[in-house]
């Protein structure tokens, strides 16, 4: 854990208290966002997303597997996140940290609960063979707000994912070598992350804003304005007003984010 110098803490708190930020943005303004897709030719879907200096790469690999017993006709989604030690001097090599698992689960929750991937179309043979989509997030540069960058990257990669056509011949799965189909997607989604500094709510926090924030809130909203996932993080509580304010702003801001896709 990095120690935050008192002078940094106070200067950020003072700025935010006066509705200003260290990089000159408004409290409800995102940093520059760039999205590139199909960046990994060996992955069936991939994207690289930058929000300011934050940079993540995601690759999607499908594998045939057995469905879960309670959903024999549905494909499977698995989201995994590696906070690479390259991304931040405080990230350590080794098994995923709590933070990394939380990040992967929050990103996964948005995709899963919005039901935007039509999992029923990923069934090859009911009860036996379904497509399992491995969504692997690689965090390569951490300058704050990994959540929103990851969700955008996953969304962009899902939209470009192509799977080989699978057919059953003599009870065996045969994959077509040249025929593919687009991963069926019926919605779009973005995640908006807020932190509370003093008594203000700030969107898209930088790393130093994250380090002085008392609490965090992630809100996942679909293109049609439905809230499909939320997570409160951080040491201190939020008030009901804070939360309602953030949700209201998230519904507006996710529309802007989705335009980047």
């Amino acid at each position, binding site marked *: 854990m990095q120690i935050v110098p008192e002078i940094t803490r106070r200067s950020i708190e003072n700025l935010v208290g006066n509705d200003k930020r260290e990089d000159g943005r408004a409290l409800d303004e995102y940093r520059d966002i760039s999205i590139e897709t199909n960046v990994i030719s060996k992955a069936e879907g991939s994207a690289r997303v930058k929000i300011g200096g934050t940079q993540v790469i995601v690759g999607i690999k499908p594998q045939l597997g057995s469905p879960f017993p309670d959903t024999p006709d549905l494909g499977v989604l698995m989201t995994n996140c590696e906070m690479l030690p390259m*991304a931040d*001097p405080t990230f350590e090599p080794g098994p995923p940290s709590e933070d990394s698992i939380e990040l992967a689960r929050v990103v996964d929750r948005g995709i899963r609960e919005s039901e935007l991937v039509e999992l029923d179309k990923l069934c090859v043979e009911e009860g036996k063979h379904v497509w399992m989509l491995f969504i692997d997030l690689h965090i390569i540069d951490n300058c704050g707000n990994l959540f929103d960058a990851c969700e955008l990257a996953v969304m962009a990669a899902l939209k470009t994912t192509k799977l080989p056509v699978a057919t059953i011949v003599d009870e065996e799965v045969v994959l077509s070598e040249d025929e593919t189909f687009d991963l069926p997607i019926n919605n779009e989604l973005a995640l908006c992350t807020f932190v509370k500094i003093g008594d203000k709510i700030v969107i898209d926090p930088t790393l130093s804003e994250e380090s002085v924030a008392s609490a965090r809130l992630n809100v996942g909203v679909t293109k049609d304005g439905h809230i499909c996932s939320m997570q409160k993080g951080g040491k201190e509580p939020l008030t009901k007003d804070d939360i309602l304010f953030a949700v209201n702003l998230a519904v507006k801001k996710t529309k802007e984010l989705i335009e980047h896709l």
Partner: protein
Amino acid sequence: MSDIIRDDGRKFDELRPIKIEAGVLERADGSAYLEVGGNKILVAVYGPRESYIRRLLEPNTGVIRCRYNMAPFSVDDRKRPGPDRRSSEISKITADALRPALMLENYPRSMIDIYIEVIEAEGGTRCAGITAASVALVDAGIPMKDIVVGCAAGKVYDEIVLDLSEKEDKEGQADVPIAMMPRTGEITLLQSDGDLTEEEFAKAIDLAMEGCRKVNEIQKEALMKKYSIE
């Protein structure tokens, strides 16, 4: 010499297209991005910084910690995340390949971390990792005796060729990756697997060293580009 044309249209002594960029990450002290053929490799360097891992701390010298890691999506069949025996070995020999160029005795109680991430793999990632890591070390401002550079030669269809692609590596008879310090010609990494006669081995090592010198020019260009004043 041989005038064969390889599967991908290259001559026996021709490298795959290669591109190196220095200083691509914000947080890292030094970084580099390298593409050669279908390989995409990202390297970050942190340090020298105080060794916060007590068991690694050496009172009289600095230490380097190297981690070679393949992304799960970097290969055709998804690789399980985390270290395996192959990546552990490559991490070790990469550290050994780079160490001779560093002046670690100047950094007691410190460590230098080198993180090599294979974003996409297409044969020859260990050499590409070493080549990119050296550029990242220079970008981090760490004094070095030389820029270490890696390149492989091998035997494919009974011919000694430079810089094997993934396909050539699979179909070929031998692979000889090396790393060297081009100023002195000293070799800091050598592996060989497959079948070679003594003459073939001598030819392979000459070819690989020639390849290293070519790649070294591209390393220097990348650094010049990053640090030249317009």
